[in-house]
């Protein structure tokens, strides 16, 4: 085959095939990444002209200063508070993973109705979204909601949940577990577990291993790569998430208790129209995620979903 001729033809064809997608990629994905960085060096409210401010946004976001009343004060205390919120809301990750692993293990036992169970467990994940957030908001209603009614059955008086500063985050975490435990993590664990040949278990029990030892030496190694993957994806996703939930259920929470970084970026960008500052926050978030990804990659995990 004539190498150059084929390559040239290939290139021309490739342009046709690639063009729409590539144009879109350029305009709406690649260029915006650079534009966002540029924006973070400006201040722009979309009604007046943009103004170059250099590193001012970053200093304002990440800097600290001495306060005359003693001690240090952050230039943007809200940023650190919301960062803390974001991290706090990611705390249930290990719990959710364990729950998914448990469900996957039980489902793997090939009981009757396993298919039905799997469908029901997966249901919350399918329907998750704004509709379900409204449902849970209604469920957390302190006077008419199901959650307090359930607590009442057990003789407990439920808190005000989403309007209570101390219970708003736990409320979201509980809902997060309900949504996640039977979801994609469970499916991934199931797939991993199904990849373990049953002879291994038989051999182990012949050798006299207890259930716990079987788990530790047969199940766990099979499941560890998936666990690592889920954890990393969970962290990366958790760092960016929280907007839909907070907007629908708490509007940022009583006194900013449920505002995550994603929500903070939203308010800065689309409520107050401080496009430069919002881009700064987004880029800092990106750098944090990048750090997590590189850390994961170094440890030998897979880079991409």
């Amino acid at each position: 085959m004539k190498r150059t001729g084929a390559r040239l033809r290939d290139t021309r064809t490739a342009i046709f095939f690639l063009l729409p997608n590539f144009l879109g990629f350029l305009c709406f994905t690649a260029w915006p990444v650079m534009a966002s960085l540029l924006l973070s060096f400006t201040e722009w409210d979309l009604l007046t002209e943009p103004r170059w401010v250099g590193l001012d946004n970053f200093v304002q976001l990440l800097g600290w200063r001495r306060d005359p009343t003693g001690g240090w004060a952050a230039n943007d205390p809200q940023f650190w508070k919301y960062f803390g919120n974001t991290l706090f809301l990611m705390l249930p990750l290990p719990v959710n993973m364990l729950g998914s692993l448990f469900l996957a293990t039980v489902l793997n036992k090939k009981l009757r109705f396993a298919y039905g169970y799997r469908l029901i467990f997966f249901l919350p994940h399918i329907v998750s979204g704004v509709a379900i957030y409204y449902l849970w908001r209604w469920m957390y209603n302190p006077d008419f909601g199901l959650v307090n009614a359930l607590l009442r059955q057990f003789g407990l008086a439920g808190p005000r949940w989403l309007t209570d500063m101390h219970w708003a985050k736990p409320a979201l975490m509980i809902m997060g577990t309900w949504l996640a435990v039977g979801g994609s993590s469970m499916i991934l664990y199931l797939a991993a577990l199904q990849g373990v040949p049953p002879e291994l278990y038989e051999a182990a029990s012949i050798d006299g291993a207890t259930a716990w030892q079987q788990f530790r030496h047969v199940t766990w190694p099979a499941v560890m790569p998936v666990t690592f993957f889920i954890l990393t994806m969970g962290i990366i996703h958790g760092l960016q998430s929280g907007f839909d939930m907070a907007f629908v259920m708490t509007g940022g929470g009583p006194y900013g208790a449920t505002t995550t970084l994603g929500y903070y970026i939203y308010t800065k960008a689309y409520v107050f129209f401080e496009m430069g500052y919002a881009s700064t926050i987004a880029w800092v978030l990106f750098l944090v995620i990048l750090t997590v990804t590189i850390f994961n990659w170094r440890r030998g995990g897979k880079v991409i979903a």
Partner: protein
Amino acid sequence: MKSPRRDWLWHIPLLLVGGTMLVPLFFMFATALSAPGQALPVTDSVWRMIWPQSWHWENFAEVWRVVPFGRYYINSLVIALVVTGGQVFTSACAAYAFARLQWPGRDKLFLAYLATMMVPGSVTMIPNFVAMKILPEWLGRVLPQVDWLSLRYLGTGAQSPGVGRLIGLDSYFALIVPAMFSAYGTFLLRQFFLTLPRDLDEAAKIDGCNHWQIFSRILLPLALPGVMTLTIFTFMGNWGSFLWPLVTTNQEYLRTLPVGLQAFQGQYGTEWHLMMAAALLMLVPIVGLFLVGQRFFISGLTVGAVKG
């Protein structure tokens, strides 16, 4: 080796968990069927909260009357369909270019695609928003004959313009076009194409097919599971897309379902029975789509993770 007698014990936690999953959905259904203002206080029995006490099926009809729910539905449908169609089509074509064609810079470009998948949505969303805002002003300077900011009616009323603006914020363009391009789709389909054997390609080439025919007649049908997966994921993702429609549209006639659900929150309190009914109506296509395309969905979840 397994003792079947002990197996039924496992049904207990499974039933408990299954119940926990279903109970909120029952509550949703019961609320949707209740009468306005008749929400049961928490002091009442939990069973009465979960099982519908009254069967006001007309709530589902009322939802369409009280707010322009029909418009929201049509918007959501049209936008999701167009975005899905566009995304799948462009991703498939691009995936073919990456998987089957040789051209300079191919692998570097693919690496660039992969790299952008790491970027959080909020980073790219802001410049896209800004672009949507300044686009009509720009175009107005380049092509001043067309009034880019005015509304187009296509024969419908002033309250509900058929087309609205051509471009810019508060336009269908802003809702559809930026969502149509995703690196994820290209990645997914490229992986699928790579698993397909090249012999069929070669045979077709010998028969004199051009690339387009190889792509459309041979590869696409073979890659149908991957295409279906991408279609389902994209549709479901776009159906529930909340932030982008929220910030790019201000006008009622452009609302999609997730954003439109807010309309049930009145100034003096939310009409929960209507809200739940509307939420259920919004979920129907999703659940339907899932039931129909289950295996694609499941395989889509695993293919990304298990492969590297």
